[in-house]
């Protein structure tokens, strides 16, 4: 038991605490990642497949057959009555009866009660959820807008916040602590409430309908300053003193010494910034009102009407926006998780 709480690197034999720990983790992965997997699978289902209950894990869809002279018909298996067991295409429904035909003998109509047939299903991924999304608008224009905003905002965020964090962690000057506290205090303001004043300001500055209208308000973040400052506090002052001895300028110290050493914390802020800007919806929605300046989330949401939501597109859209962040994370996950671990606390 003592080991359960204390051991970091340990012994060869497994005791029950090892089993419990691994069981906990496996269950945890199911709970943490299962829902995302479910979302991914559902996004491949057809409109009717999404609504089916009970739902299936894999994307099933009803089989259609081409019948001579009757076009594409949906295939059903008859479950009761004289035609039980046969697979027939449905021509039309008449009240409580359906008219079916055998694809091999399309001339004769077969009448069966509605309850006596079940659809024949097969596995088919509904890629048209995705292609349908893309064919509706100039996808690459919106992708470019999103990438531009995300990339530029992230670079500026890293620069501006790391400069501030450098000063706040490595200099002593009057007003330093009040400035830091003031920045942290802005965390307390609910973001929705500054939306309207921010728009009025952006409009005065001529930033509406421009990617810069999304970028500028985002580059100074209290979280970023906080994270970087905490990390920079752990860097030994001796390094800086040594550089000063060598007559390096303060700017040089900042960007040649402190910045490279803060790489893990910068990686963390980078992934957060990428995630924030890439997913950002509310502010771009207000500040960008011309379709040529839309970001991807805005364009992808355009099919959300007042009265209707198309779930198949909604799910596909969610997956599309999720993908880039997931891929970046998959490549950088080691740096990111370690970066947070080391930046989070001093």
């Amino acid at each position: 038991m003592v080991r359960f709480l204390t051991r970091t690197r340990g012994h060869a034999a497994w005791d029950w605490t090892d089993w419990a720990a691994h069981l906990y983790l496996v269950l945890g992965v199911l709970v943490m990642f299962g829902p995302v997997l479910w979302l991914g699978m559902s996004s491949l289902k057809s409109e009717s497949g999404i609504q089916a209950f009970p739902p299936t894990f894999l994307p099933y869809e009803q089989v259609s057959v081409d019948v001579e002279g009757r076009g594409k018909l949906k295939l059903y298996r008859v479950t009761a009555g004289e035609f039980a067991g046969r697979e027939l295409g449905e021509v039309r429904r008449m009240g409580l009866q359906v008219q079916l035909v055998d694809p091999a003998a399309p001339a004769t109509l077969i009448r069966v009660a509605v309850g006596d047939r079940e659809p024949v299903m097969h596995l088919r991924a509904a890629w048209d959820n995705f292609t349908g999304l893309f064919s509706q608008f100039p996808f690459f224009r919106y992708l470019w807008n999103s990438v531009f905003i995300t990339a530029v905002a992230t670079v500026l965020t890293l620069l501006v916040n790391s400069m501030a964090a450098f000063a706040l962690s490595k200099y002593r000057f009057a007003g330093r602590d009040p400035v830091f506290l003031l920045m942290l205090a802005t965390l307390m303001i609910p973001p929705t409430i500054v939306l309207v004043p921010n728009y009025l300001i952006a409009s005065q500055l001529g930033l509406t309908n421009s990617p810069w209208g999304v970028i500028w308000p985002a580059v100074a973040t209290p979280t970023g300053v906080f994270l970087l400052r905490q990390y920079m506090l752990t860097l030994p002052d001796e390094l800086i003193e040594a550089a000063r001895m060598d007559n390096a300028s303060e700017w040089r110290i900042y960007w040649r010494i402190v910045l490279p050493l803060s790489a893990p914390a910068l990686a963390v802020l980078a992934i957060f910034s990428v995630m924030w800007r890439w997913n950002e919806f509310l502010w771009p929605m207000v500040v960008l009102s011309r379709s040529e300046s839309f970001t991807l989330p805005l364009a992808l949401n355009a099919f959300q009407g007042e009265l209707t939501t198309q779930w198949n597109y909604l799910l596909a859209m969610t997956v599309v926006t999720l993908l880039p962040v997931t891929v970046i994370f998959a490549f950088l996950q080691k740096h990111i998780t370690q970066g947070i671990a080391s930046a989070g606390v001093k």
Partner: protein
Amino acid sequence: MSRIKILAAAILAGSVSVATAGEIRIACYSDGNECEATETLAARFMKDNADVKVTIDKMPFKAIQEGLPVQLAAGQGPDIARTTDFGPIMRYTLDLTPYLKDSAYWEANYGPVLGWMRKDASDHGIYGLMTQLTISAPLVNKTLFDQAGVPVPKAGATWDEWAAAAKKVATATKIPYGMAWDRSGARFAGPAISMGAKYFAADGTPSVVDDGFKAMAQRFVDWSKDNTLERDVWVAAGGGYRDAFEEFSNGRIAVYLSGSWQLTRLEKQIGDAFEWVVGSAPCGPAACTGMPGGAGFVAFKGSKNPKDVARFLDYLAAESVYAEWMVMTSNVPAHAGLQKKALPYKLSPAGIAAVQSFGANAALLSPLAYRLQGDPMSRPMFGAVVDRVSQAMSGQITLDQAYARITADVADAVAASKK
């Protein structure tokens, strides 16, 4: 420093987006294919009017609902926007009368709905064009009625008869509930007016709670207790609109109070999975009415090209173009002349029958329903009804408390809007 250059570039980038002469921007949202259809017509318009450039910005409804008022307040925003919520943007709308070719044509054909975009009774301006007329009506799963051996209530049947029939179907076919209503104050208003609700005091000020309103609210809550009515739709969502289309399309309810905008979904998602028909608006002692509604293209004062805005809307409003537009979007026209004609909709036989039933329901609409829909205070009233009635339905407060709250909420909104 490079940052200053970037800032300068940013300001330049912002100032470039000034509208060029002859350009019209339309902020558009879709419940179906309304924006795409308008784009098709706009392309044709631009061929004949080469000096005008119409750009349609397709955006989420939320962007228009929440972003547009802010943009307009700051003196920005599009020339035209498609919206259902005219109240918050009324102070920015443009009276098109001086620019229109023939405003008498507009009055004659769009008369009843033009009032919806006006500030009050003394206002005679023309502020925009309705992109469709929607009519709320009961949608019926006839297959379930047939299986239960219950006839679908005919025109003139009362709400009590409809509720009893729906309950009977539910019991016989073992579905959980007889009927469901969209979670919407506008949907609720039709039945309430039928029961005798007036929504306005004698002096014209909003006044929701009266005996007619109480008669419907009491029934509504009672029905939810014995599973005649599905509670979930109203209770489960905290704020705002929610529909029950999925319940209906999955055959879990027999009667669904919704409206004509569901036509495309009925065709596409139900198809022939079961037989669906549009019922005639159920009656109360005062009327047999649903609620009219719909989205409209409104023009804004901030537009630099008001003449071109009017030209484009004139083009869309012309009878032949408007008819084509309605066919493309499978919508019921707001044009009085076209309402009397059978348009060549590209729909299944069930869909065609449904359009006709919606048309029949349009003829039943009470004048009060039109007036209520167009009143600037209608949405605060609808909102208060939805919030408070669902609270009463969830058991959190009593119906009497709900009535008091509705009255207070509406009074509060009226006071705030007068400031």
